[in-house]
């Protein structure tokens, strides 16, 4: 993101001039080698033990960064090589002990050797805080960067990612994660293990569902989900009470009440299990085969507080509107123990006691009235 603000002191920031025009046609290999040598010479000539920022854009680079970078600029904290056409970032970065910000957007990175091996083990692994690789060609999150334990901000926007690796959870310090504008179809629940994540951008992808574990991201302040393929959100999203920004537009979210989608009647085993649990029929491990004892321990409580029932595997998906932080209307997926069991969303709804058809219509009109109140209030 652009910083805006006071310009840094000139003697501590180096910006290279755009390259001079080419002399004339020459063998391409010669040209590239010559250009690389020229760049190395130019940087060496401007070497500085104090320079903290180096901006190479918008110079077009024909080859990798010169190996002498860390010798010429040992105090470098910020390196901006955006828009230079770089196809790989190499070992020349590893020896920059103070580098905390690396901006390499709009390049040709994405192939196998794009990031140097040993990134996590180098001093850079602990010092790097901001990494911007947006506008490149990554088809997967490069494994090399998962070792950056100190990384606070990562952008891979506008690449070609099809998924997010579960090992993303290794980036323990991550606060800002921008993955908008890719081809991501699903989110690994491990993403929820990032303890400091406060800004998560997943807009403009192909995501069909959100794992309920995302509700564990207690520090999440901003969640961007617009322009995806979401038809519903899990009810656990209600737990994100610190959320200040939420974008959902451009998703095929269900607007109306949807009646029972599918219902598999419970098995006899399930019915027996329910009876045992709800009637508190006493049993001891010696009374039952081990597998049934284990089965009985897996009982879940129906989310409907008025129901008080239990279920094992049989559940009904019911898609409903529920208020969120008192302001939003989201369709959520409720796992409920039977079609008779419709969860009232708040004490305002009086109608639900039992039985299907009339029940859901009453609920529909009550909820419609509440919807108007919430949105216009």
């Amino acid at each position, binding site marked *: *993101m*652009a*910083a*805006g*603000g006071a*310009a840094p002191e000139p003697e501590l920031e180096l910006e290279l001039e755009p390259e001079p025009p080419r002399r004339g046609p020459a063998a391409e290999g010669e040209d590239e080698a010559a250009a690389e040598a020229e760049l190395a010479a130019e940087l060496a000539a401007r070497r500085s033990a104090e320079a903290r920022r180096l901006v190479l854009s918008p110079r077009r680079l024909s080859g990798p960064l010169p190996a002498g970078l860390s010798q010429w600029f040992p105090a470098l904290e910020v390196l901006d090589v955006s828009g230079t056409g770089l196809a790989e970032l190499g070992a020349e970065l590893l020896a920059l002990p103070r580098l905390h910000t690396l901006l390499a*957007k*709009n390049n040709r990175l994405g192939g196998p050797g794009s990031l140097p091996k040993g990134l996590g083990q180098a001093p850079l692994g602990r010092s790097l805080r901001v990494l911007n690789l*947006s*506008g490149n060609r990554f088809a997967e999150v490069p494994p090399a960067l998962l070792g950056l334990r100190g990384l606070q901000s990562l*952008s891979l*926007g*506008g690449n070609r990612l099809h998924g997010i690796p579960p090992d993303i959870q290794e980036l323990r310090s991550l606060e*800002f994660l*921008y993955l*908008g*504008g890719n081809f991501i179809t699903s989110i690994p629940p491990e993403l929820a293990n990032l303890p400091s994540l406060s*800004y998560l*951008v997943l*807009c*403009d992808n192909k995501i069909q569902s959100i794992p309920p574990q995302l509700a564990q991201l207690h520090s999440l*302040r*901003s969640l*961007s989900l*617009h322009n995806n393929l979401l038809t519903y959100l899990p009810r656990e999203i209600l737990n994100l009470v610190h*959320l*200040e*920004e*939420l*974008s*959902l*537009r451009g998703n095929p*979210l269900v*607007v109306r009440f949807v009646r029972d989608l599918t219902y598999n009647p419970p098995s006899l085993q399930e019915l027996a299990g329910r009876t045992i649990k709800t009637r508190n029929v006493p049993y001891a491990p010696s009374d039952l085969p081990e597998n049934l004892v284990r089965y009985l321990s897996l009982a879940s409580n129906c989310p409907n507080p008025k129901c008080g029932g239990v279920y094992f595997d049989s559940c009904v998906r019911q898609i409903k509107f529920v208020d969120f*932080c008192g*302001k*939003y*209307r989201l369709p959520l997926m409720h796992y409920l123990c039977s079609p008779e069991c419709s969860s009232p969303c708040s004490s305002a709804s009086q109608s639900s006691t039992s039985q299907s058809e009339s029940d859901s219509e009453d609920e529909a009109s009550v909820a419609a009235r509440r*919807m*108007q109140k919430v*949105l*216009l209030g």
Partner: protein
Amino acid sequence: MEQPAMMEQPVQTETWKARSLEELIRILHRIFAEDKVSVEEVQALMESYESNPEEWLQYAKFDQYRYTRNLVDNGNGKFNLMILCWGEGHGSSIHDHTDSHCFMKILQGNLKETLFEWPEKKGNGEMTKKSERVLRENHCAYINDSIGLHRVENISHTESAVSLHLYSPPFDSCNTFDQRTGHKHKVKMTFYSQFGERTPCGTVVPQENN
């Protein structure tokens, strides 16, 4: 405060050229001191200013989570001139302009503007998109409530965007609309900074952006 009448036809045939942000503001003050102001004239004036980041960088304060509104000049009460900073992916909700005129000039990057019809009175369905376009650097767009509602977004995942907005008369609240239902919701607008100084306000109200 007496507001000048805004006219659709040009009042004079003068074509202004603002050679700096300071000059733009000076000319705006002159124009708005008159009884009648022409929409075309203001739009042409805003467009004539060639964006120079050195002149507005001090107002361009970005926020990590959402776009910011940074007041530049309060036009003697006749107009508000402000700079909006949009990080990658940042966008506004669909909103109206509280019976005011709104000019929006791009200073850096690009912004997508999507126009919507006003929802029906008893509307309970998806809002109707009228048109959309991407506004380029230095272009100045105009909208008012009779034209419709709009959503403005920075759809780039790699570049931030900066825009210069003029609202006349000034207003500090507007309605936001839920695209799925057409329901509206009044919101108070605040400034992230004023005259280059950060002005934090109280608790932030959660924003649903739909």
